[in-house]
């Protein structure tokens, strides 16, 4: 029984991490849009290349934030949560 419970905990954590990383879609689309527009802008005004690139990198890094939230959750679920949950379970069984 205990093995099953621990298996469910580990599986749930892995599934949760995988589902959390779906959030990576959002920043991907957003950053793709930003880069596309930056390419357009550079094509139209090549002399603004450095300013456009800097602004685009800044914007990309900020747009990435939501993806990084998901990443933090996924990392917590994979490396931190299982041992905590298993300890909780073992303490409850005592």
């Amino acid at each position, binding site marked *: 029984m205990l093995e099953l419970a621990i298996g469910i905990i580990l599986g749930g954590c892995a599934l949760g991490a995988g589902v959390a990383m779906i959030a990576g879609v959002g920043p991907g689309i957003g950053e793709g849009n930003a880069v596309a527009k930056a390419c357009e802008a550079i094509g139209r005004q090549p002399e603004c290349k450095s300013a456009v690139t800097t602004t685009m990198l*800044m914007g990309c*890094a*900020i747009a990435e*934030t939501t993806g*990084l939230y998901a*990443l*933090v959750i996924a*990392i917590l679920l994979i*490396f931190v949560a299982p041992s905590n949950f298993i300890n909780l379970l073992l303490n409850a069984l005592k």
Partner: protein
Amino acid sequence: MTATAAKPNKLFRAVDVLLLVLAVLPLLAGIVIRILFYPATEGIDISGALIYFTLDTPIGPFPISESQVNSWLVMLTLFWLCLYLTHGITPEGGSRRQHLVEWAVEQVDRLVCENMGEYFAGFAPFIIAMMALSAFSSLLSLLGLHAPTSDINVVGGWALLVFFLITYFKMKCGPLQYLRSFTEPVPLLLPLNLISEVATPVSMAFRHYGNILSGAVISALLGAALTGLSKAILGGLPGILGDIPLLRVGVPAVLSIYFDVFSGLLQAFIFATLTMLYVAGGFPAELYARKKAAKSKKRR
């Protein structure tokens, strides 16, 4: 070059070399400490910062972790490097070093003035210190050390510092004005304003730490995968050749250029830029100027 600037004497040279050695020494010390303390591991090793030892204080146990030690080492390195770079500066200007430092200072001054305005011109040293600390901390992973920025506690501390700065400059027109700013533009938005106030340091800390940590995790995974691959392919080679993970040579360096160098430097720049934007954005400049003008009128 003039004749007076061309001949640095022996003492000057000796101090130069001494400062450079002192700047490199903390990094070497970091590597030595890591080799001494690190437990031998096989395969994937993705854990948080190693705790070297725990101090017993009256308040409670105070663990000294790898990220603390490494960030102090980075600070020491930066300190000696700054002394080295500013050593022998003359009003006439001459050495290549001086031009480099002057260029950097001018760039940061310009950046701060552009982003924050004249009132915050004094912020330049703080901004460049933050940038240098963050960049060097992230670059520490190039030496195989644990980057302090991949620990949420370190970056969270910086974000808290920035949060206090933002709040201080928001309170420049008095605490009442600060409290009133939460109910703008309509009082209905009070909870949203409170949430966004708290979200600022949280998102800053998560952004920086998540970027660096994801690079570290991917590098570790790639290293483990390449070790397994070379064991499977080259394991049949005779003698010691089969034991060395040959495929691990060189390949992770390509990823490291992106994850350690590019991402680390970009995050340092972004952290500094966001600090500038938030601090300058929270400051009620118009109201402050009006109040100051009214005060000086009263005095007259």
